[in-house]
């Protein structure tokens, strides 16, 4: 089929659009078939039901928070949420320092409280260790040990420090210093007064002094069941006192001395492969710690003291949120302000530990700003009505543009459909890649944007009509009209985009979806006008129906008042010639 040479350019542009759409949906199909994406956008909490909590950091006095701390806080809260066994939870920041936690279903009060508390990372000297497995807790022994799934930690039976070869594994449970309270399967704490623990009355001289272990602590130690979340939750972490706690994977328990190094004294923590003397990587993963001034001194004191002590008291426990995430052995007095932890790490576990050490100190707690619980019934109700509103809105726009622009109205309709197609694909893609969720506000944004998108078509059509009124032939009118309309469309869409972008960066999360869909549709609008509406109109201008200004085409020059004879150059007079031809046909 021979292509009208006038149509070649527009057809090329249209094929770009087709490629774009095919590419978009191809990508979407690929990631939904082989990836994790779904074919529909994920729904926000207000449509699918669930709970949204907004937490704001509690600031003491003039304390200020920076973006880094908030990011840390988000990571920690995410770990806490995941640790409590809730799946599909989302944690994000909003505005300056607010943290939004979205959970499916309704969380219990304890979960909410656990999200709000501050997070503490401390280093304490180990006094006693014990295996958690045979805990003589009277009730829940046979139950499967539901280990908290804080991502890291379980693997690094980490020991070792700078330069020296890593030791592997914790020392056997309850070695040397104490006799085994756990050796007896029944809870009989009094019977097992550990031989190595000296008189409880004596005042402890330093943080590693076994004198900290009072009979009361010991009783707590024996009673502690690391497999029981309740008893783990009951652990108290008072920096000035010794504490009884579990390792975060629930396999071991400890009695630890008072806190000696605070989490905020750790300046940085990174994970890397150990380097050998000649600088090549050894393939052994290590976690490198950097301390600040106070931390260097404190850590120096601790390691200097521990290095000469018998196992397990040569270990120090790194306690995060009441649980020991790592208990390495000190292998020298480390006073340089850096230290490395080695053990049988993998790349991921080393990174996880480093992140925990780095982000561990979250010296702030949060106030619950809002708690919004939406029932699934209400949500689905809202969605169906939102879609109804969208359908009605679309119909009204279609009806109005058909009324105003006759056949041109169909150009509007098809452009709107293309825009809808692209928007749907993009939203679905974003919901997969960026975790965007469609909320009621987002739906509102989409509906409102129907008007905005249709507006740019109107701008264009009116411009073309203006040119026709000036007496241009339709093909010329479409081109000159486009040149002028494009500028207006770009600047007005630019302003809209700017407004939406400012809203997006600063708005409260509940309406962020609104700003997001507005931004998205503004871009889609420009794409559709450029790649679809304009080439389509150019092609249509070459058809008899539109090009000769059929009565129903919406571009009838007579109807548009271009009654005057217009000189089109080279002796041609457009309207008169056309009218004469038309009259000739009729007679």
């Amino acid at each position, binding site marked *: 089929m021979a292509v009208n040479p006038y149509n070649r350019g527009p057809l090329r542009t249209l094929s770009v659009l087709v490629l774009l759409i095919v590419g978009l949906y191809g990508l979407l199909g690929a990631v939904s078939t082989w990836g994790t994406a779904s074919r529909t956008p994920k729904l926000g909490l207000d449509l699918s*039901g669930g709970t949204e909590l907004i937490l704001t950091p509690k600031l003491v006095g003039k304390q200020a928070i920076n973006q880094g701390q908030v990011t840390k806080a988000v990571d920690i809260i995410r770990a806490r949420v995941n640790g409590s066994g809730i799946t599909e939870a989302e944690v994000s920041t909003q*505005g300056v320092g607010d943290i939004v936690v979205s959970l499916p279903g*309704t*969380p219990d*009060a304890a979960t909410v409280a656990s999200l709000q508390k501050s997070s503490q990372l401390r280093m304490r000297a180990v006094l006693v260790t014990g295996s958690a497995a045979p805990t003589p807790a009277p009730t829940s022994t046979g139950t499967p040990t539901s280990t908290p799934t804080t991502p890291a930690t379980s693997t690094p039976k980490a020991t070792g420090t700078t330069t020296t070869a890593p030791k592997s594994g914790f020392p056997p449970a309850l070695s040397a210093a104490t006799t085994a309270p756990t050796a007896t399967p029944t809870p009989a704490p009094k019977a097992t007064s550990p031989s190595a623990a000296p008189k409880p009355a004596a005042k402890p001289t330093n943080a590693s002094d076994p004198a900290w272990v009072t009979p009361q602590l010991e009783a707590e130690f024996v009673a502690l069941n690391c497999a029981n979340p309740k008893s783990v939750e009951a652990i108290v972490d008072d920096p000035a006192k010794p504490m009884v706690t579990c390792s975060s994977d629930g396999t071991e328990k400890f009695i630890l001395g008072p806190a000696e190094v605070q989490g905020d004294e750790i300046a940085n923590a990174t994970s890397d492969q150990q380097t050998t003397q000649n600088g090549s990587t050894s393939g052994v993963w290590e976690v490198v710690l950097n301390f600040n001034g106070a931390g260097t001194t404190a850590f120096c004191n601790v390691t200097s003291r521990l290095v000469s002590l018998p196992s397990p008291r040569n270990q120090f426990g790194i306690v995060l949120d009441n649980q020991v995430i790592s208990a390495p052995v000190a292998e020298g007095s480390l006073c340089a302000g850096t230290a490395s932890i080695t053990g049988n790490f993998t790349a991921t576990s080393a990174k996880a530990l480093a992140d925990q050490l780095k982000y561990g100190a979250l010296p702030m707690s949060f106030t*619950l*700003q*809002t*708690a*919004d*619980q*939406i*029932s699934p*019934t209400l949500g689905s*109700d*809202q969605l169906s*009505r*939102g879609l*109804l*509103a969208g359908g*009605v*809105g*679309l119909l*009204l*726009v279609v009806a109005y543009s058909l*009324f*105003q622009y006759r056949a041109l109205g169909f150009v509007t309709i098809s452009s709107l459909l293309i825009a809808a197609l692209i928007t749907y694909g993009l939203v679905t893609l974003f919901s997969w890649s960026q975790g965007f969720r469609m909320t*009621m*506000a987002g*739906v*509102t944004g989409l*509906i*409102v944007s*129907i*008007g905005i998108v*249709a507006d740019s078509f*109107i*701008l264009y059509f009116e411009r073309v*009509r203006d040119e026709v009124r000036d007496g241009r032939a339709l093909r010329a009118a479409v081109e000159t009209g486009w040149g002028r309309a494009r500028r*207006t469309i770009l*600047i*007005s869409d630019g*302003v*809209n985009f*700017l*407004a*939406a972008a*400012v*809203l997006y960066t*600063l*708005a*409260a999360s509940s*309406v962020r979806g*609104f700003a997001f869909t507005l931004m998205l549709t503004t871009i889609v609008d420009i794409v559709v006008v450029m790649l679809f509406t304009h080439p389509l109109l150019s092609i249509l201008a070459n058809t008899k129906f539109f090009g000769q200004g059929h009565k129903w085409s919406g571009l009838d020059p007579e*109807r*548009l008042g271009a009654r*005057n*004879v217009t*000189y089109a150059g080279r002796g041609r*007079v457009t309207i008169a010639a056309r009218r004469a031809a038309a009259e000739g046909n009729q007679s």
Partner: protein
Amino acid sequence: MRSFSQFGNDLYTGKRSIDIVSRQKTWYVVSLILLVLAAAGLFGRGLNIGLEFRGGSEYQVAAVSNFTNFEARAKAALGTVNPGSNVVVTRIGTNTVRVQTENFQSTTVTAKVKSALASQFNVGANSVSANTIGPSWGASVSQQAITALIWFLILVSLVLAAYFRTWKMSIAALIALAHDLVITVGIYALAGFEVTSATVIGFLTILGYSLYDTVVVFDKVRENTQDAIGNGRQTFSQAANQAVNQTLVRSINTSVVALLPVASILGIGYFLLGPGTLLDLSLALFVGIAVGTYSSIFIATPVLADLREREPAMKELKKRALRYQAAQTRNASAVASEGDQPGQAGTAEAGNRDVVHASSGGVTSATGRPLHPYVQTGPRNQPKRPPKSKR
């Protein structure tokens, strides 16, 4: 339809022209009255601040079938858990009951209230939504809104100044913007609509929308005034007025099309959904878009014209244009006195760019065929020769 597009044609060609720019004082007075009313509403009545800004708890019970005596029942349900609190119960849409209390409740209390409400209204626990808002939340929302407003204003005035290459357009657009915002908020105060955080976002979105309209008009104003400055046939105000007239149909169409979906949300939201993000956003948008259309036509352009007319260059242009127009009128009356189609040429609005069009109908060839203006004057730089029959 016919008459509307006819109206558009007439506005475009200048056959019919609405004096918008020259009657700026009228619009200023109208707007001033509206602004005073808005301010009175704002400071007299005050805004009806929603729960989100005061802090408190809100419960929504969906799928309620039995509405008899629902207020007392809801209060009873709440009283068992949280006695003595100030409770407001409203019915929303067809099957939803909303319960609001002033105090911020802990999650434990919330859970109890939910189950009490569920059993009272005989619905599943799934059908009860709870929303608890801390007292400081509203302040932080307002804080964010104000930050967003300031950023938006700064960015947008920069963008507009860069695009239009004159800060006066930025100023005029911003004045129109402030005008829209104050009136919209004022309408909220006067009508007593509830202000929620969604409403605040709606207000901020109006900013974008109001500017959208203004930018479309200004784009045409720029085009026309450039022509006018080039050929010296129109004063700035005349060119601006013509631009407003030419874009009037477009403004009406774009506003109607923008309003239609918003109106549909508003309708569905009001009759079926009840208060919520949807209704709050769409109400703010509806009012804002309507006011925005008004201001881009009746406020922004006259303000711009007022600002620009003070420039010496524009005063110069005014002199030139008036001189030109006087000459045109003289010519036209001369033609009219020749007896050649009186009236037609006389009605051509002096100084209009389309004066050529309007008068072109008046000159016909000997055979009665209308002559294009291009050929009316004969070959360039040569005296016009009358046709043989007239010689």
